[in-house]
């Protein structure tokens, strides 16, 4: 791997920023131009990410930096872990954009919505490419600022309340994050991300300080990653429009937090130091608790989107769990789940939004017989649900397999029990939905909904089918080159030699 100064990392970040500003400046009425801009930017971004990926595969790491504050650069650096997250968000942004254009057809203030939507992806890209913790922090905060307007988009009382809760958690967490960052800077100076951990190389004695720093920063990440007990904002944020929920849960906010934990453990502290400080086990326990507790809470929800939200709380912690256990196999499991959870959960949110828009179905007991009216959406939803449970050959199975095997390999067999419990709970809260849709008779009247044009319906159904297809493909083709699994294994080789 050789680092090369290259404009690509900043260009890929700026593309969606400029698109976002242009969309907001265009105003409400230029709908066609806005759609064109949206899609062009999304496709362009995907192309650029692929370009970077090709560079990285050739062993080149493109780097872009300029001074931000004394001692710290704004450093954008596309290593293979960046590519994993960047390609996930580029792909999912494209499908979500298509979905959102259809879904938001009858909403107000769409220029503002799509403007912030694009800035949100800018932040996600910045997080993916961030080459040190300060850069990460900058984009992490930008993400908070860009997602808040999306959460409160409708301006209803409930939305504003959810926005307040969201800010209370995220800004509170980031205040701790910043203190941790300052502390780390005072202790160890400027630190760029290094595979295997930059702090491990310094051989610092200040173990107590290091632990405190880790906890402070992990709380900052944990808020967005919805680690229990920092998760309470996520279910209330469900008042946001469905594409926002999809984005929040699959690529943007929650995933950014999980990705941050990966960076913190793998690139800052390093697996060795994390384990030595006892932090790996602590994080693994926190993640395990979140996995089980989130699932239990999900079981108690009668609202479809809220059940999905608690399911996210549970599922995202697989990533933290994998990275916390350490060892090559579990690391692969955690990293690959970053992608797998994304495609599965986004499918389910797309479908939930479709159900609500077309049939007015928002509660679980209203799902009966839904497959008869919306077979394609129901099929996509079911594939994703089975994948989440971990049924082979879906993507979720691959993640769980690697997590379990990795835990056994490093002697943490208790993790297997957590995985089994989680799988049972997943089945308990997802299988009834699937069986209701396919096996129960349809009601005479649906709760409500509208009859949009065929284009709009297609715009909502097709993205879900695409991501459901990816769910299957990532599982079936896991062994082929360039599958997420293959890429995650390549990354793990860098991190755990």
């Amino acid at each position, binding site marked *: 791997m050789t680092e090369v100064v290259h404009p690509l990392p900043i260009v890929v970040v700026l593309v969606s920023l400029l698109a976002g500003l242009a969309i907001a400046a265009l105003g409400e009425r230029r709908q066609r131009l806005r759609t064109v801009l949206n899609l062009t930017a999304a496709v362009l971004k995907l192309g650029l990410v692929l370009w970077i990926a090709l560079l990285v595969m050739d062993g080149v790491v493109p780097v872009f930096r300029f*001074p*931000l*504050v*004394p001692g710290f650069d*704004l450093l954008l650096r596309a290593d293979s872990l960046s590519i994993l997250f960047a390609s996930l968000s580029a792909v999912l942004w494209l499908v979500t954009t298509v979905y959102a254009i259809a879904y938001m057809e009858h909403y*107000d*203030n769409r220029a*503002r919505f799509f403007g912030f939507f694009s800035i949100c992806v800018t932040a996600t890209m910045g997080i993916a490419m961030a080459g040190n913790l300060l850069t990460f*922090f*900058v984009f992490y*905060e*930008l993400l*908070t*600022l860009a997602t*808040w*307007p999306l959460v*409160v*988009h*409708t*301006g*209803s009382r409930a939305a*504003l309340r959810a*926005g*307040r809760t969201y*800010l209370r958690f995220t*800004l*509170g967490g980031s*205040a701790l994050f*910043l*203190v941790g960052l*300052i*502390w780390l*800077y*005072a202790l160890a100076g400027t630190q760029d991300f290094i595979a295997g951990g930059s702090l491990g190389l310094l051989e610092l004695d200040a173990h107590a300080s290091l632990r405190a720093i880790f906890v402070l920063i992990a709380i900052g990440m944990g808020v967005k990653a919805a680690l229990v007990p920092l998760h309470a904002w996520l279910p209330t944020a469900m008042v946001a429009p469905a594409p926002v929920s999809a984005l929040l849960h699959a690529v943007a906010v929650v995933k950014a937090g999980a990705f941050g934990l990966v960076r913190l453990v793998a690139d800052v502290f390093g697996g060795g130091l994390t384990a030595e400080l006892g932090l790996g086990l602590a994080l693994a326990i926190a993640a395990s608790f979140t996995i089980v507790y989130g699932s239990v809470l999900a079981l108690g929800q009668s609202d479809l989107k809220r059940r999905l939200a608690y399911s996210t709380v549970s599922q995202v912690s697989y990533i933290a769990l994998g990275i916390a256990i350490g060892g090559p196999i579990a690391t692969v499991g955690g990293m690959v789940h970053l992608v797998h959870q994304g495609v599965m959960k986004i499918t389910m949110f797309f479908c939930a939004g479709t159900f609500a828009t077309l049939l007015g179905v928002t509660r679980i007991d209203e799902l009966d017989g839904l497959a008869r009216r919306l077979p394609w959406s129901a099929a996509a939803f079911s594939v994703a649900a089975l994948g989440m449970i971990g049924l082979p050959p879906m993507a979720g199975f691959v993640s769980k397999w690697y997590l379990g095997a990795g835990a056994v390999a490093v002697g943490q067999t208790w993790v297997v029990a957590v995985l089994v419990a989680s799988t049972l709970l997943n089945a308990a809260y997802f299988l009834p939905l699937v069986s209701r849709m396919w096996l129960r008779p349809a009601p005479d009247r649906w709760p409500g909904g509208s009859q949009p044009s065929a284009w709009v319906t297609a715009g909502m159904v097709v993205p879900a089918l695409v991501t459901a297809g990816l769910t299957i493909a990532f599982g079936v083709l896991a062994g082929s080159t360039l599958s997420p699994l293959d890429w995650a294994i390549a990354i793990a080789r860098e991190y755990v030699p």
Partner: protein
Amino acid sequence: MTTEALTLLVFAPLAGALVMVVAPRRAAAPIAVLSLLTLPPALVPLTRAVRAGELVQLPLAGFAAPLGIVWRVDALAVTMLLLSVAVVLLVSLHALASFPPERESGQRFWPLWLILVSSLHALFLSADLFNLYVTLELVTLAGVALIAVRGEPAAMRAAMRYLLLGLMASLFYLLATALLYGQTGTLDLYLVGERLEAGGLTAIAVALMATGLLLKAAIVPLHVWLPAAHGKAPGPVSAVLSALVVKAALYILIRLWFWGGGGQAGEHAALLLGVLGALAILYASAAAIAQRRLKMLVAYSTLAQLGYVMLLFPLASAGAYRAVVFHVVAHGIAKAAMFLAAANLLRALGSERLQRLAGAGSRHGLDVLAFALAGVSIMGLPPSGGFVAKWLLLAAAWQERGWAWVVVISVGSLLAAVYVFRVVSLAFAQPLREPERAASAGEEQGRAQLTSVAALLLAALAIVLGLASAPLIALIDQGLPPGMLR
């Protein structure tokens, strides 16, 4: 070249003001624009000379100290002048629309405005305790007149209160000047700094001077005049009062403390100043949250932000100096943007009640955007000038092991988030009732847009400052007080 630049900075606006009073009405706009546009070119050679390490001095009319008055420009003065010129130019853009020079309101506004600019610049150039007194008095008088310029009853009361307290503060300052002169036999700030020795008289002098300056800078608990004065003043005036005028008093205090020997007053005095700052941050932020009127909220936010400057005294390190001066610049720009945006919203909605903001996000998007962007900097979130300032200040506090300050800074920025988002949330809320009063005539519309553009430009500058902080930090670092090592 540099001495001409110095004189231009003060005399161009002054001449503009004087000429405007006697010139015909339609000449007012060109005179104003001309006298303001000479400012940036005048700053260029000055900045260049200071960056090259020169200390630019100019004995006025050729009389040397002690009888003559000497202007002296170092990196700190240049930093303040850069801030002043940037803010004044962009706020003037707003004022061109909100106080059209050819109309009656503009005829009253513009000469005062130019005199304020001139006296502010003279203040930043002065290196003499008495000269600082004179310029500070001029700044106060011009500021008071500007607050009352529209003749609104509430504004006049606020102006009167500001005037009375300001005059009293000046007398405290003058009394202290006399004490220092009696002790050292000079009024030159730098010579005073060299000759002053610790002792009872010094302590009394510094206490008196600090009290006067803190009154002018509205540091809690000496702040009672500020919210009304800044809240009731017309938009451009509030912007400059918050961005520059209160900072001028703090500028003198910093000069006195670190250059003029005020630090002789001791560590406990420094700690006291820091505690006042912490109090200002916490109390004024909480008060801002409780406000029901938009501009009052912004005014209380100014009080809170001024508190951060006070942390320089107990921390007293190179890092803290750099952080605080950067904060002064970042806050000046962001707060000017915020006041302009608030004034625009207030004008468009016809009420300054916060509740009336509901739904303003979609109808007055530009102003809400400007407010929000400025808010990002005020909250200290990246990427913005406010974030860089917060980062530097936290790092400095950490280095000095000032854990309490770290907590205050963190809590302060969270409180700031509460009041900023209170406003922005309301702008996103569903409107209470449709529709508002019909849009006014075409010309008014054009002017309204110019005022929004001015706010937005300032807000954008507040953000850009966070991405391009390196040159400014380099400039600030060059002006470290004597004895403060990097």
